[in-house]
């Protein structure tokens, strides 16, 4: 009986503290997240969440249409090693982990007027969204996220290199 009381006190304190901190923390998350890959990129819906659903390209076919149009620069958000191992043909590497080091070079090569499609390794990967956020912050206005990323592209047999 005493043990039940003590456990309740410890758990009760943890619960209250957990929800209070989560409510006020700038990195707090929603009570229910988005964990269905069929609905898009999975995310805990944090307050600092980089996911913007409106800029998502939901299917490989749509991405292929943009790719074929030739008006879009595809930008690979994954690490340099992943990019070297295989990427969408013609894509530019801009690893989100090295964004600060590489953005100056990228800005020099690609003016803010261009249309960009970012991608990473699929719907459980937030890097393409994070990269899109960063690019929007740096003045690029036409940025979209191809959420199926390299694995989705490759699986459909579209051009890779």
């Amino acid at each position: 009986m005493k043990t039940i009381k003590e456990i309740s006190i410890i758990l009760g304190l943890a619960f209250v503290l957990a929800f209070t901190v989560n409510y006020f923390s700038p990195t707090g998350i929603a009570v229910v997240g988005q964990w269905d890959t069929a609905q898009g990129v999975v995310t805990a819906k944090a307050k600092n969440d980089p996911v913007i659903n409106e800029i998502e390209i939901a299917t490989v076919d749509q991405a292929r249409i943009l790719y074929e149009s030739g008006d879009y620069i595809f930008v690979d958000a994954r690490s340099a090693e992943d990019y070297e191992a295989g990427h969408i043909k013609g894509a530019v590497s801009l690893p989100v982990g090295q964004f600060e080091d590489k953005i100056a070079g990228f800005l020099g090569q690609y003016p803010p007027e261009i249309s960009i499609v970012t991608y990473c390794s699929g719907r459980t990967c937030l890097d393409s969204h994070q990269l899109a956020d960063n690019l929007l912050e740096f003045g690029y206005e036409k940025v979209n996220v191809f959420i199926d990323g390299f694995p989705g592209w490759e699986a459909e047999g579209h051009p890779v290199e």
Partner: protein
Amino acid sequence: MYLSTAFRAGRLKGIPLNNSLHNILFSSWIELAARWVLGATFIYASYSKILAPADFAKIIFGYDLFPASAINLAAIILPFVELIAGLALVIGVYPRSATLIINAMLLAFIVSLATNIIRGHEFDCGCFAINPDNPSNFPGTLLIRDLFFLALGILVFLYRKQRRLCISSTLKG
């Protein structure tokens, strides 16, 4: 008569040996060390999860064992249960009950790890640091480490004498 004496002698020899092993394992200093190691480990483990609950939620999602509606709740609550139970062990408040909670969590971790090892599911343990660049600790090592912590937890739980450096301790609770 002879046999019985030998038997008795053996038993008499056996008892002090068993007692000394028992005394070492359940000495108040060993209990204190086990309790502090366990408590400090859980406090440390809670730290990066509290700072980045979204990353922790994604790791829980990666285990592919829990319903979507429970993932965020677990990511919000679990780190604080680790923190409070860990603190309770270190400062010695309700040590036995805190150990029960920690052992329950360890058991859950062990079952989750083992399930994913057995079905060959690739996942990020997310036990301590949440580091997307270096996700994979070898799951077998993690399992052994968790079993070691569980052994410490069982020792702290079974300890029935007066505990050292405790704010409140229930001897029989």
